[in-house]
Structures are given as structure tokens and as C-alpha cells.
């Protein structure tokens, strides 16, 4: 974290996760090879290299769908939040399978000519001006470059070096990359297939991801639009103190600014920025542990009284002034500078 660059700390959970991930990926790839080989139309037969090529692509594309579904699923239901923790492992695995597919395709289709294989991929087919016969390999190459940048910068070192906003913007390139891959499949492998299975699966995957992302981002967008209304003297009403579950938070959305998480820890009520310093995760969806708000995404912690991470870490987030009047919690929407102490309000006797 902030005490300098450290190698990724492996633990049993991460090792187990990777064993399941890679075991599952190899199983999916093997199943694809067996099923495709045993269901080939009469009179046609795939070369084993072509089978492996397609199996690698299918596995990478399936993993990409899973990776892209985790974000909105976690927004729609808390039960999917644990999947966010090692999502970067999934992303790197997508890149590895994509790279193997690209390397094998380059060797198989472009490796036997005196031309540089990269030049061959990009220049052998010049039909960039028409859809029919479009050089779909270039689309896959573009997506692979994006996946490479994302895999290479997936470590926390790059997150800290670039800062969360730039890092997140960079990693949002995965969506254009997904579009490129859909075009790569649609203009490539799908063109030679007569089965409805290919376009059906492609459409179903695109529809599922679109539905999930539209639902999740639509809910968030509506929250941002409606906002939390200011009430007394410009302070925001967070509702009754006893309505905030113990160890949890309610989230306020001031018009035009970042969200505020109002936590309850016993009798203490404190307000912090809802944006975690690590990956800008929704801090208010986490819980309070040992007097610290814990981000639900990767477990980063901030003290309720000053928004500072406990030693030896040095991250700090904005705090807000809080008061309780007649059992109702009010929050000053003006953020205090990150790490500024702000005395938590205490739930009065008679207002448990």
C-alpha cells in the first residue's frame, strides 16, 4: 500500500483462487475441443491446430464475459462482492489466453512466409474499406494491445503510480476492447459458420453484459440525479441515527459532488468520503471494524474520526462535520481536507 512498493502478497485464498481459475479454464478449453471434434459436420474436419486456436479464443472470450459481469453483479447484489477481490487475476488470465490464441494464429497463418508476421497480419488483406472480407485479425490485435496494457498495469504499483482516477480511466478501455473482440469474432470465425449457435452465443453474451451494465449504471445514475436534498441551514439530513445499522453506513449524494458515507459505530456517527483511495471503491458499502471503515472491494481501512488509514499506512480521505438533532443525523456537505479530524457525533440517551 502506501508505505512503498511491495511484491504481491500471496496467501492461501489467492493460491486457491488461481488453482480454480486455471483448472476451470483448462477444463473449458478441453470441453470445447472434445465437443467440437465430436460434432463436426460430415465431410468437414478441423485441423488440430485450428481446434486449439478456437478453444483458446473461446476460453479467453468466456473469461472476459465473466470478468465484465462481476462489476455490475457486485453493484446489484452484495453476494457477488467477494468476486471483485481477485478480479485482476481473471483479467490477466484473459490476456494470457488471448495472447496464446494470437501467437498460435500468427504462427499458423502468417509464419510460413518471408514477410514479417505482424506486417502480414495488417497488410496482406487490404480490405479495410469494406465489411465483407474485412481484415478481422487487426481488430483482435487492437483488443490484445488494450488487454496487454491492462494486464501490465494491473499491479497495485501502477495503481499508486498513476493514481486511481487515471488507472480506472485506463482500465475502462476494456469496454472498447470488448467491442473490438465482438467485431473480431463476428467478421472472422462467424463468417465461416452456418450454425445458428455462433451468432446466437455472441448475441446472448452481448445482451447479457449490456443488460447487467445498463441496470447497474442506470441505478447509480438515477441516484446521482435525484441527490440528497439539503435541509437545515444547508446541512444534509441522513435520517434517524438509529436507522443506521450498527457497523454500517448510509450513503448521501449531494448535488454535484462526491457521495458521503455516514457510518455508525456503537454510539458514534461519523461521515467520510464514499470514495476509497485505492480503486475509488464505495466505502459506504463496507462495514466498521475496530473503529475503522473498511472498503468492501479490497479491505482498505480509514479511521472514522479523521479519515486516515491506521499505521503504517498513510492514505487519507475527506471527512465531514456531523451533528445529531432530535435523533436525526445532519451532515455538512462541505468536505474537510483529507485526514482532517472531525469529532463523531454521539447518539444521545433516549435516542438509541
Amino acid at each position: 500500500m502506501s508505505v512503498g512498493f511491495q511484491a504481491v502478497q500471496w496467501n492461501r485464498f489467492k493460491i486457491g483462487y488461481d488453482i480454480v481459475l486455471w483448472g476451470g479454464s483448462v477444463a473449458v478449453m478441453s470441453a470445447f475441443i472434445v465437443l467440437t471434434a465430436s460434432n463436426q459436420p460430415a465431410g468437414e474436419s478441423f485441423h488440430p491446430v485450428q481446434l486449439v486456436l478456437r478453444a483458446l479464443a473461446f476460453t479467453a472470450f468466456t473469461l472476459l464475459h465473466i470478468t465484465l459481469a462481476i462489476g455490475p453483479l457486485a453493484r446489484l447484489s452484495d453476494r457477488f462482492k467477494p468476486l471483485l477481490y481477485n478480479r485482476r487475476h481473471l483479467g490477466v488470465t484473459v490476456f494470457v489466453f488471448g495472447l496464446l490464441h494470437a501467437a498460435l494464429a500468427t504462427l499458423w497463418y502468417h509464419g510460413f512466409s518471408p514477410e514479417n508476421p505482424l506486417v502480414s497480419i495488417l497488410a496482406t488483406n487490404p480490405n479495410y474499406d469494406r465489411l465483407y472480407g474485412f481484415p478481422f485479425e487487426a481488430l483482435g490485435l487492437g483488443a490484445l494491445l488494450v488487454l496487454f496494457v491492462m494486464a501490465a498495469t494491473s499491479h497495485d504499483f501502477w495503481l499508486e503510480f498513476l493514481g486511481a482516477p487515471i488507472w480506472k480511466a485506463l482500465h475502462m478501455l476494456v469496454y472498447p476492447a470488448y467491442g473490438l473482440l465482438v467485431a473480431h469474432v463476428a467478421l472472422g470465425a462467424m463468417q465461416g459458420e452456418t450454425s445458428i449457435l455462433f451468432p446466437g452465443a455472441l448475441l446472448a453474451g452481448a445482451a447479457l453484459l449490456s443488460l447487467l451494465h445498463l441496470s447497474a449504471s442506470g441505478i447509480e445514475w438515477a441516484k446521482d440525479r435525484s441527490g440528497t436534498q439539503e435541509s437545515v441551514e444547508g446541512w444534509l439530513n441522513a435520517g434517524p441515527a438509529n436507522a443506521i445499522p450498527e457497523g454500517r453506513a448510509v450513503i448521501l449524494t449531494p448535488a454535484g459532488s462526491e457521495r458521503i458515507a455516514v457510518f455508525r459505530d456503537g454510539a458514534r456517527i461519523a461521515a467520510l468520503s464514499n470514495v476509497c483511495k485505492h480503486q475509488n471503491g464505495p466505502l459506504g458499502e463496507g462495514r466498521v471494524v475496530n473503529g475503522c471503515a473498511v472498503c468492501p472491494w479490497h479491505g482498505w481501512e480509514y479511521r472514522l474520526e479523521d479519515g486516515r488509514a491506521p499505521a503504517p499506512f498513510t492514505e487519507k480521505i475527506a471527512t465531514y462535520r456531523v451533528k445529531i438533532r432530535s435523533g436525526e443525523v445532519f451532515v455538512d456537505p462541505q468536505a474537510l481536507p483529507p485526514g482532517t479530524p472531525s469529532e463523531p457525533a454521539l447518539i444521545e440517551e433516549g435516542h438509541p
Partner: protein
Amino acid sequence: MKRAHRTAHWLIWVLMPGILLVIIGASLAIRAEPAVNHALPAALIEEAG
């Protein structure tokens, strides 16, 4: 998440379904039925005598 990130995400996914539908639809439209060249084997057979 920051507000700007949420807005960008929402914008991307408002546009994305239409883009994906156009890509897949256009690809399906240009997909030709696999041609079966009945003439070639006959011509070869004839040529070969």
C-alpha cells in the same frame, strides 16, 4: 466510485448495446451461404479423362 467515472460508465453502456447490435447484425447480413462448387470436380474429372 467517483461521479465522473459513474457517468462515463453509464454513457458507455447506453451506447454499447446499439454498437454491438450493429456490428453483429451487419456481420450476419454479409455472411454468405457457403458456396458448393459442383462444377469444379466435374471439370477436373472431365479434364483428367
